[in-house]
């Protein structure tokens, strides 16, 4: 089955009129966070109650993707009235239905006028929480696959690359390499067989943006990949997803079969000569597989160990063919850029970092959850306005970005705009978007040790600096937290960080010292207090004698 634009518009029209036919709609968040608080049961109860009351043609219950405010789950949204409900229980169901024609149930209302909802600018997550991710028709009704249609029927590959370059989009996986440049070199790469890989190996602990996008709007990523394939001359794609995200995998597989059935992937897409095949591949729990060359090895069915670059995957990748790897969020930005133009996208954000960024806000902050904000928003706005500040009147201490490869940013930089370059300046990285807020109860040496333990056990073991060095750093940090370290060891710690950063083979090792380096820089007194005064300023670490 191949569709043309009339078919797409027809599907969208039917879907919209179906939606409008209902007096009321209730969207139940079925993303992993709310599901684990029992939102599945609530959806079931709502459906049963609606049927029992014979209101099936009056009120529509839809399961949707992430509504964002995970901390207050399970969440419901009522798009007809614009209100949200939080912390809903099955027993609240009759009351919610009773109140549909009157005023909302006061004790369940989640204030939507707060900065958490108002300050967000949604591009990547524009459909999250608004459509049923398991139905392609709903995606089409929100202009889904219109970008792909436009790209395939009205644009040359070069025009698409120009649009992407002109938008200023940079890789959302963390390093921020300009996406247009990557596409350009892929398009120029020699060879008739080329591959596109979507990197959904979201391994940073504390990051769940990609999971939410894949769970809430999988078609957006598929559309971005097909456009990328057309623009760069690739006919085969892989979406590499962590096995730890079963729901994302399930929805992605379902979305793929729907897209295949409608002819958005496969042969002669939209009656053009372009063909593209797409497969899902599961990771198996290895952080290092987020690194391009390790990811390729993993798709080939081998151990996920990186190799030196160059040659870069764009020349020499999967099965030695040119391969382009883009992050989930990067690809999720493509369809809107094609639909709305590069100028529109370039108008959002800062001079060198365009568009928005999705962050997973977690840790000691009131509103934990998923947020999308324009590049350049200040950390203070993120933590205090959108995040609602520190719970129980606690005192802000630091915010950690970029996971084990990033750094801890102290209070003095709270007014710094969040973009690739500012974060790099203070020694951290944008990373994939995990943002962990810490309050005074966290010991920064202990936090550094936590990340080092992570890097140590995730080191693939191929190169010596990373394999041995992370262990040595971890041991010294352990001694410091136990107040058993000497100044000589402290000096060695600094030397080791420098050594590992400069001599490791891949990004994992090169960035592993970042959490230590930033805490050394901004929280040096905490290190020294452990060594000189044998005390933990945060009161989090046990002294050696207490441990024994």
């Amino acid at each position: 089955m191949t569709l043309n634009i009339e078919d797409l518009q027809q599907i969208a029209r039917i879907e919209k009129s179906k939606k409008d036919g209902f007096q009321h709609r209730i969207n139940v968040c079925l993303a992993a966070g709310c599901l684990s608080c029992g939102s599945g049961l609530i959806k079931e109860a709502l459906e049963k109650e609606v049927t029992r009351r014979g209101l099936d043609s009056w009120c529509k219950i839809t399961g949707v993707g992430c509504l964002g405010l995970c901390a207050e789950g399970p969440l419901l949204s009522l798009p007809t009235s614009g209100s949200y409900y939080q912390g809903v229980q099955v027993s609240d169901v009759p009351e919610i239905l009773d109140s549909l024609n009157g005023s909302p149930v006061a004790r369940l209302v989640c204030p939507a006028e707060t900065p958490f909802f108002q300050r967000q600018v949604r591009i990547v997550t524009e459909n999250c929480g608004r459509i049923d991710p398991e139905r392609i028709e709903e995606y089409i009704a929100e202009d889904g696959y219109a970008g792909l249609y436009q790209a395939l029927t009205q644009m040359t590959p070069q025009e698409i690359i120009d649009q992407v370059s002109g938008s200023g989009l940079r890789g959302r996986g963390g390093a921020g390499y300009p996406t247009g440049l990557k596409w350009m070199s892929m398009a120029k790469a020699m060879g008739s067989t080329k591959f596109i890989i979507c990197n959904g190996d979201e391994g940073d602990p504390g990051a769940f943006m990609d999971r939410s996008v894949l769970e809430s709007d999988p078609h957006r990523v598929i559309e971005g990949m097909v456009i990328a394939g057309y623009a760069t001359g690739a006919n085969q794609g892989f979406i590499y997803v962590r096995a730890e995200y079963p729901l994302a995998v399930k929805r992605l597989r379902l979305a793929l079969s729907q897209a295949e059935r409608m002819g958005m992937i496969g042969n002669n897409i939209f009656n053009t000569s372009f063909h593209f095949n797409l497969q899902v591949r599961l990771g198996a729990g290895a952080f290092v597989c987020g690194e391009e060359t390790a990811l390729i090895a993993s798709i080939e069915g081998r151990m996920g160990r990186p190799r030196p670059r160059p040659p870069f995957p764009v020349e020499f990748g999967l099965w030695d063919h040119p391969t382009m790897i883009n992050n989930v969020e990067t690809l999720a930005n493509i369809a809107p850029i094609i639909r709305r133009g590069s100028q529109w996208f370039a108008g959002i954000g800062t001079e060198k970092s365009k568009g928005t960024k999705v962050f997973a806000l977690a840790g000691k902050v009131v509103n934990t959850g998923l947020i999308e904000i324009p590049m350049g928003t200040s950390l203070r706005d993120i933590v205090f306005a959108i995040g609602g500040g520190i719970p129980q009147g606690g005192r802000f201490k630091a915010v950690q970005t970029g996971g084990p490869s990033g750094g801890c940013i102290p209070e003095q930089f709270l007014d710094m705009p969040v973009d690739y370059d500012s974060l790099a300046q203070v020694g951290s990285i944008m990373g994939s978007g995990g943002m962990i807020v810490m309050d005074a109860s966290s010991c920064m040496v202990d936090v550094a040790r936590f990340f080092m333990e992570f890097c140590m056990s995730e080191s693939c073991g191929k190169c010596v600096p990373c394999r041995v060095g992370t262990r040595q750093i971890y041991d010294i940090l352990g001694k410091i937290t136990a107040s058993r370290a000497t100044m000589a060891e402290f000096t060695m710690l600094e030397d080791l960080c420098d050594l590992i950063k400069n001599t490791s083979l891949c990004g994992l090792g090169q960035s592993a010292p970042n959490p230590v380096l930033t805490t050394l820089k901004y929280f040096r007194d905490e290190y020294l207090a452990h060594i000189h005064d044998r005390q933990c300023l945060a009161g989090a670490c046990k002294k050696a004698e207490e441990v024994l």
Partner: protein
Amino acid sequence: MLAEGINPNATALPATSPAQDHRLRMVNRTMQLYRNEPHGLIETLHTVQESFGYLEEPILRYVAAALQVPLSRVYAVATFYHSFTLRPPGEHTCVICRGTACYIGGSGQILDRIKEKVGIATGETTADGKVSLLEARCLGSCGLAPAGVFDGEVTGKLSPEKVLEKIGRWQHHDPEH
């Protein structure tokens, strides 16, 4: 024991019971999906683990022969990735997330208390074979930290008491759980 050489004639199915046949069929299906090519190895091992609960040595030999991959590589992949386990799991599994948000939220204390009260550390199973304890790198449920997975069901906002209660119920045959 797996480090020994490969038996080149190990293409025949291991001796199985009817129940095992069904499980092997699942494994065969996955391998066929990848036309028995070596790149299907990781997906195949996922299926083996889903069907058999863990990566049993005879099955690893079987997979190696069927995909024409050296057994050493199958073993390397099986031990490289954290998702795979070579030991049979307990009747119930409790996974505690050790992601950053969960760590900040106190998942370390939960693990300490389990060790203290139940006597198992990460990767271990209780002597009665009832409960296995595992750690996850990050479940992506950071909004609900600290989080865990109990027999496949993600649960958030855990405390040591809640977790111990759950494990206690598993150990004492509470029919409802």
